[in-house]
């Protein structure tokens, strides 16, 4: 008997217990009780996932649990990987969340995390305007709303439980049920701070609409699939997929892929993500950005590879296109963002783009018949899912700490936190190292693997590979390069130098629970960075379960990463040790020529002889990104507005210059605005149909009934 069943039962039980604790416990112990339940269910998820990754398979049908179809669970190593990742993120974020919801906050006068002004988060950024202080919003300390409220605390465990259980679903109905539960719970959590900021409501609306359009697509796609396959359990779908005509398979794939890529935050269906992730409470952002979006990838793999059994090259080229687009577009928008959480949200879009790019490459190689290479590409994509979950959860938690301590997420007004919140700054630096894809960070390992898969992919026959793969390599390289700029900006402007506002100047370190949660994630990042080889067997099993390749993509029993069938190898532990040893050696050798031990002298900053440089002279995030914005002017199409006010006496004497620049989301402008306008126009016209007369409505009903009956008579 394996551990998966009991662990899954524990997940379900703890989710219910957590919801009850969050809803019923007195306000004082509410976050602790709900947090403990959430952490427990996360741990159970890790146990279930690890057991599944170890090779345990589990399947159960509980017909009594739900009417009609019942609940069907089926766990294989692929589900195990996603359950383990979700569980691990949940444990750390739950610990963090206990501290995040604890009363007080770092600010004097009981400011809560909700207190930050809307100017920095209103979708764009402003440059050169006067640095106004954050207004003193109503503190979220009352406990009636915000993250400490009954509702938010009760929904949190449900959200986490649904996320852990989604990969365990074994039938279409169970999957859709859990999927919708997850979506609804996350929507409620996104809205938790709707009283503090009006932007939360707009973000919630976008999220609600897009996630439900996705659900509709998913519902129709999977229903079509189930109808054709003659059964709704995944086993039946798997068995029936082979006999389906190519057109139906393609339709199912495209419909589900649209829904799943939207959940994964891929352009052009990403519009909800940079709205909802920044506006959600930070520990919810961490869960959404590090765990929920992964389930979009899980869905792609489950349906595309496992249930449909792979497909022709055009499916995968489509995926690669979407992945490449969101990788570059996401990181470009992140480079322009001066809102820390918006920056991190766009970076999620980029990283999931890379994952989907790898998934698409795996499908392309599989379609071309090169299974070992397909396995390598998929292993790279899965490893990137794991790495991204670790560092993005850490980064969002650190951003939450900053928000809680300063009330700010606008990088232009932060700064100097390294001295005031040293632990948080160090942890953010660790996460950023993972995110920039440079050694010795964890992101580097998976991007290296992905590049290896693409570089070796040129051996695959077909001219498409010769054109697509170099472009894919260039896309990964450009996004890696821009990611370096993005996180240098986030760390250097947000945490280094001197505070640029009073809020940043008053920051104090976060409570221990938050630091502990982040330390857990940092430890995961470090382990993934130094000994990624330990995940080798697990990745092999997950790739095999996805039905992509049976060969091992990575050689077993190594600390580093060694490709099983080529000479390429990476030993991150040795690289890290060499860097540390080299740094120590250089520090020692540099002391030798000094004749006497010169004391390090503190000196004032070189101010060119003028007065001491003030914080307003320091480069801000906006100015840091300016050269990149100019280089990518044609892509970003920023809107610039210069407003010169002359004095009353003469038009030639300037009293005030106001400069404003917005970098709008161009995809949103070009794709969504016309669509929304059309829908809204249609709705206006439809309004004429409802005249208020009962006779009219009865007439509509009659005509409707006749039409349906006529269709039935003629059609069947």
């Amino acid at each position, binding site marked *: 008997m394996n551990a998966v069943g009991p662990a899954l039962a524990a997940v379900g039980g703890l989710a219910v217990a957590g919801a009850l604790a969050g809803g019923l416990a007195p306000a004082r112990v509410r976050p602790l009780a709900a947090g403990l339940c959430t952490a427990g269910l996360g741990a159970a998820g890790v146990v279930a996932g690890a057991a599944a990754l170890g090779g345990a398979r589990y399947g159960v049908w509980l017909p009594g649990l739900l009417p009609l179809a019942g609940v069907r669970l089926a766990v294989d190593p692929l589900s195990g990987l996603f359950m383990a990742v979700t569980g691990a993120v949940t444990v750390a974020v739950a610990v963090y969340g206990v501290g995040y919801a604890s009363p007080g906050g770092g600010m004097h006068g009981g400011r809560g995390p909700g207190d930050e002004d809307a100017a920095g988060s209103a979708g764009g950024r402003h440059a050169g305007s006067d640095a106004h202080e954050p207004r003193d919003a109503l503190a979220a300390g009352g406990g009636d709303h915000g993250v400490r409220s009954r509702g938010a605390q009760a929904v949190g465990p449900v959200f986490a439980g649904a996320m852990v259980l989604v990969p365990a679903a074994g039938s279409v109905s169970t999957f859709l049920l859990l999927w919708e539960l997850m979506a609804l719970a996350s929507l409620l959590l996104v809205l938790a701070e709707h009283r503090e900021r009006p932007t939360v409501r707009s973000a919630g609306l976008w999220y609600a609409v897009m996630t439900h359009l996705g659900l509709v697509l998913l519902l129709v796609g999977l229903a079509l699939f189930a109808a054709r396959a003659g059964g709704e359990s995944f086993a039946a779908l798997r068995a029936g997929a082979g006999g389906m005509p190519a057109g139906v398979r393609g339709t199912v794939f495209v419909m589900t892929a649209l829904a799943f890529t939207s959940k994964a935050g891929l352009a052009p269906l990403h519009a909800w993500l940079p709205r909802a992730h920044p506006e959600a409470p930070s520990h919810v952002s961490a869960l959404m950005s590090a765990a929920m979006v992964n389930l979009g990838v899980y869905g792609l793999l489950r349906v595309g590879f496992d249930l449909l059994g792979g497909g022709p090259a055009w499916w995968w080229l489509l995926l690669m296109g979407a992945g490449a687009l969101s990788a570059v577009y996401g990181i470009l928008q992140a480079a322009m963002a001066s809102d820390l959480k918006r920056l991190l949200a766009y970076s999620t879009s980029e990283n999931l783009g890379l994952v989907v790019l790898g998934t698409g490459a795996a499908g392309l190689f599989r379609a071309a018949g090169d299974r070992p290479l397909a396995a390598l590409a998929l292993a790279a994509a899965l490893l990137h899912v794991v790495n991204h979950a670790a560092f993005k959860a850490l980064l969002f938690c650190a951003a939450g700490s900053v928000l809680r301590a300063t009330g700010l997420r606008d990088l232009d007004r932060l700064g100097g936190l390294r001295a005031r919140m040293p632990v948080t700054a160090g942890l953010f630096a660790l996460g950023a190292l993972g995110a920039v894809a440079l050694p010795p960070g964890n992101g580097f390992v998976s991007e290296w693997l992905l590049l290896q898969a693409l570089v070796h992919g040129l051996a695959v026959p077909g001219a498409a590979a010769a054109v697509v793969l170099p472009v894919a390599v260039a896309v990964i390289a450009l996004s890696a390069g*821009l990611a370096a700029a993005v996180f240098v900006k986030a760390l250097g402007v947000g945490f280094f130098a001197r505070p640029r506002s009073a809020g940043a100047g008053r920051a104090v370190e976060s409570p221990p629970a938050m630091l502990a949660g982040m330390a857990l994630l940092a430890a995961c990042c470090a382990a993934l960075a130094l000994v990624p080889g330990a995940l080798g067997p697990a990745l092999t099993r997950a790739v095999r379960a996805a039905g992509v390749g049976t060969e091992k993509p990575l050689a077993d029993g190594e600390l580093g990463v060694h490709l099983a069938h080529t000479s390429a190898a990476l030993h991150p532990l040795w690289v890290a040790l060499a*860097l540390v040893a080299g740094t120590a050696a250089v520090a020692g050798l540099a002391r030798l020529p000094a004749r006497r031990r010169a004391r390090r002298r503190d000196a*004032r900053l070189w101010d060119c002889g003028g007065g001491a440089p003030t914080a307003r*002279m320091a480069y801000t995030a906006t100015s*840091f990104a300016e050269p990149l914005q100019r280089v990518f002017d044609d892509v970003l199409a920023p809107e610039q507005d210069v407003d010169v006010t002359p004095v009353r006496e003469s038009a030639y004497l300037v009293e005030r210059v106001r400069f404003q620049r917005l970098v709008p989301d161009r995809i949103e402008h070009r794709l969504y605005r016309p669509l929304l306008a059309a829908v809204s126009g249609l709705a206006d016209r439809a309004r004429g149909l409802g005249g208020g007369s009962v006779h009219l409505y009865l007439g509509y009903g009659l005509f409707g009934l006749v039409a349906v009956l006529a269709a039935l008579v003629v059609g069947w």
Partner: protein
Amino acid sequence: MSATGYVAVAAQVAVVAGGAPLLTGWMRQVRARLEGRAGAGVVQPWRDARKLLRKEPVSPTGTGPAFRLAPLLLVAGTAVVAALVPLAATRTPVSGSADLILVVALLALGTVALALAGLDTGTAFGGMGASREMTIAALVEPTILLAVFAVSIPAGSTNLPAIVAGTIDHPARTASPAELLAVAALVVAVLAETGRIPVDNPATHLELTMVHEAMVLEYAGPDLALVELGSQMRLAVLLGLVATLAAPWGVATGGSPALLALALALLVAKVAVLGTALAAAEVFRAKVRLFKVPELLAGSFVLALLAVVGSYFLTGEAGR
């Protein structure tokens, strides 16, 4: 082989660390002579470094660990690269890890560290330099990785010793159009990565035109010595990489000490020739405007893309 292998790695690091200031001195000397000057002599950068190391270290107010660690990390990262790249020998204890992508990433790590140090000072120039440096670094990355892709196609691996050994076994590869295009793209990328004309002027005194120099305006004494040594080593190791990829002859594939000595001597000669060519070319060129740099890099990106596609159609199809 193992004893010679370790010697080879140590010798590569020593030659790069010891020779990099001499390379810079040599290039300044070539430039000075072409400009009708006498020049300060080849060992002048070493004199500068010795003096700076003896001077008093300074920590400007408000700077933290990033400012202190960046120069150390810059030099250490470049030294690790010098150990990995098969400049003199292909069979070393580290040859299994000598991956071209890793080498590129380690060099980028130094850039990122220095940019963070620039931002850490909180001065306008520090931020300006960091912003410009990261912009250029971000745009160089696609070119450099595509060039890497192109040179790795014939060997079927991004493992540097495998690429170099493969080229030594099949000398005709160096003359293939794809390889030539890739090397040309790599050269442009190297110019941008090392901050040479036409991307950046290493000798500028005008803050507003600075890229790299603006980031390091706050460094003094030993820290400055390390920053300068780091940039010099970076130039040396990248020129060595270009030389090793374009003309790998002489790189020891066996384990004999005599061959290793010959390989080191040839390495010095090849890098000196490249350095001379670079210094001479700089006399004829001016720095381009910052916002013209992307055009230059886009050109080199196209070269690299042509190299990859060309390589596929020339060697990939023929090899099947």
